[in-house]
């Protein structure tokens, strides 16, 4: 792999940057792999990367129906935070935060991680109680999170409207300073480049059409639009389409897929210093380094695979943004889109072995999977390589829906349910 450095940049300037070369190959699939990952999004690529790097499993293919990073990895609002309620979640998301800090150096690829702070607003007495409970739980679990009065919140984010005469006045905020944003595409590209360099085959435009199982029930490989590929182990990381893929192996999943919307404005000069989210009136907003306001809206109320959402959903979010940040009332929105998110009954992900030998699943990230990308890939790679979960993802089994040990994060998810 050609390492990116200042020297390389200077050298390539002499050839007008025409000879950088490709960041990863486009190989034809081999007949057999040790591990096949279904889905080349951030989580799938990170899994392949850590399989190769930490576990020496390099005979790996990542199979993608569309193009690399073209699903929810390229559609989310790029927010990184770890202020979840339960210890299990705190461990998982904090593991990711730890990896985010050194990720650009690790991958030799600028993922533009910016710890600019994530502020979650409280608008009612109930909000304040919930936020305080989260803050105390977080402090006990070693997760940074603090309470701000409305005045302090405005100091941290000057565009915020804290006047008392709006429909839902700001009564305070929980601030996680280590939270922030990262460049979503760069995360997928960085992991793809790193994994490819260690011998992982990334096979794009190749849909998985079936999962073949042997006499003993264990997986034998995947049927794809480019023919049958033999595999000892299969990891399904297909977000909104996970239940469709798992259905091919005859495994029913506790998942429902909803369209989740986001939208961006025209680019403007730096005007917004942090990430602000509000569960109660449902809005979240940040400004990308390109200058666009990145705004997240809610999910539709019905399951759908359409990758578009109802206009009344984004409208509702824009109402809230205009009231909280009056300076943006005349901003024009450039485009909006939807991504298909797979939601579990307890709003926590599933990173687990399955009843089928050799089949593993990483799904259920719902409306907030991007933040966990490095940590998710890291522990899932461990689960596949060792055939047993990492200490951190051990609680996130499918079996928890039978034993009743749910990890209820409905209140910590950014989207009001």
């Amino acid at each position: 792999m050609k390492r990116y450095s200042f020297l390389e940049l200077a050298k390539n300037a002499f050839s007008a940057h025409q000879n950088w070369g490709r960041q990863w190959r486009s190989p034809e699939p081999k007949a057999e792999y040790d591990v096949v990952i279904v889905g080349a999004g951030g989580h799938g690529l990170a899994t392949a990367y850590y399989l190769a790097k930490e576990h020496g499993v390099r005979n790996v293919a990542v199979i993608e129906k569309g193009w690399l990073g073209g699903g929810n990895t390229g559609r989310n609002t790029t927010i990184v935070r770890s202020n979840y309620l339960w210890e299990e979640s705190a461990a998982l998301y904090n593991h990711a935060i730890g990896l985010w800090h050194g990720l650009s150096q690790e991958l030799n690829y600028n993922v533009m991680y910016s710890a600019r702070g994530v502020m979650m607003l409280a608008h009612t007495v109930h909000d304040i109680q919930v936020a305080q409970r989260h803050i105390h739980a977080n402090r006990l679990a070693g997760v940074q999170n603090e309470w701000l009065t409305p005045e302090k919140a405005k100091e941290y984010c000057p565009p915020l409207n804290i006047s008392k005469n709006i429909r839902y006045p700001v009564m305070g905020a929980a601030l996680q300073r280590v939270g922030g944003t990262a460049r979503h595409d760069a995360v997928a590209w960085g992991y793809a480049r790193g994994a490819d360099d260690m011998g992982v085959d990334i096979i794009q435009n190749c849909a998985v059409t079936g999962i073949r199982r042997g006499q003993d029930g264990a997986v034998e490989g995947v049927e794809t639009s480019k023919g049958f590929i033999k595999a000892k182990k299969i990891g399904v990381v297909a977000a909104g389409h996970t239940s469709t893929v798992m259905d091919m192996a005859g495994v029913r999943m506790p998942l429902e897929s909803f369209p989740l919307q986001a939208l961006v404005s025209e680019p403007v000069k730096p005007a917004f210093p942090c990430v602000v989210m509000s569960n109660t009136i449902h809005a979240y907003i940040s400004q990308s380094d390109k200058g666009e306001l990145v705004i997240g809206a809610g999910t539709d109320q019905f399951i759908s695979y359409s990758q578009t959402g109802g206009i009344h959903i984004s409208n509702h979010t824009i109402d809230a943004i205009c009231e909280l940040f009056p300076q943006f009332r005349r901003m024009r929105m450039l485009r909006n889109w939807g991504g298909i998110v797979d939601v579990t009954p307890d709003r926590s992900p599933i990173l687990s072995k399955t009843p089928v030998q050799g089949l593993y699943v990483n799904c259920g990230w719902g409306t907030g999977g991007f933040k966990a990308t490095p940590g998710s890939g890291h522990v899932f790679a461990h689960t596949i390589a060792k055939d047993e979960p990492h200490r951190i993802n051990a609680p996130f089994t499918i079996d928890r829906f039978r034993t009743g040990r749910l990890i209820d994060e409905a209140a910590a998810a950014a989207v009001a349910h």
Partner: protein
Amino acid sequence: MLLVYCPYCGVSRPETEFSCRGEAHIARPADPAQTSDEDWVNFLYMRSNTKGVYVERWRHIHGCGRFFNAVRNTVSDDFLKFYKAGEPMPDLEELAKEAGK
């Protein structure tokens, strides 16, 4: 925004008048004491999450308040049929074929 037809009121109204209540025809176990863990898991949590023709429950919350069922294609979001609660599940393949014409 979808246009939803209420079979009780006999009118089509915007989606915001309704509340979608998930997959239809999931029967509560008749004898809870005799129901196995697996059956409880299936009843409570497992959903078919179909990509294609799917049956779901809707409730006309800002109208008559009653539950009814709908058949919808989850890729195009087109409704294929609305029917009252308690009526049997229609033949989904047949409906898909008709819609394809």
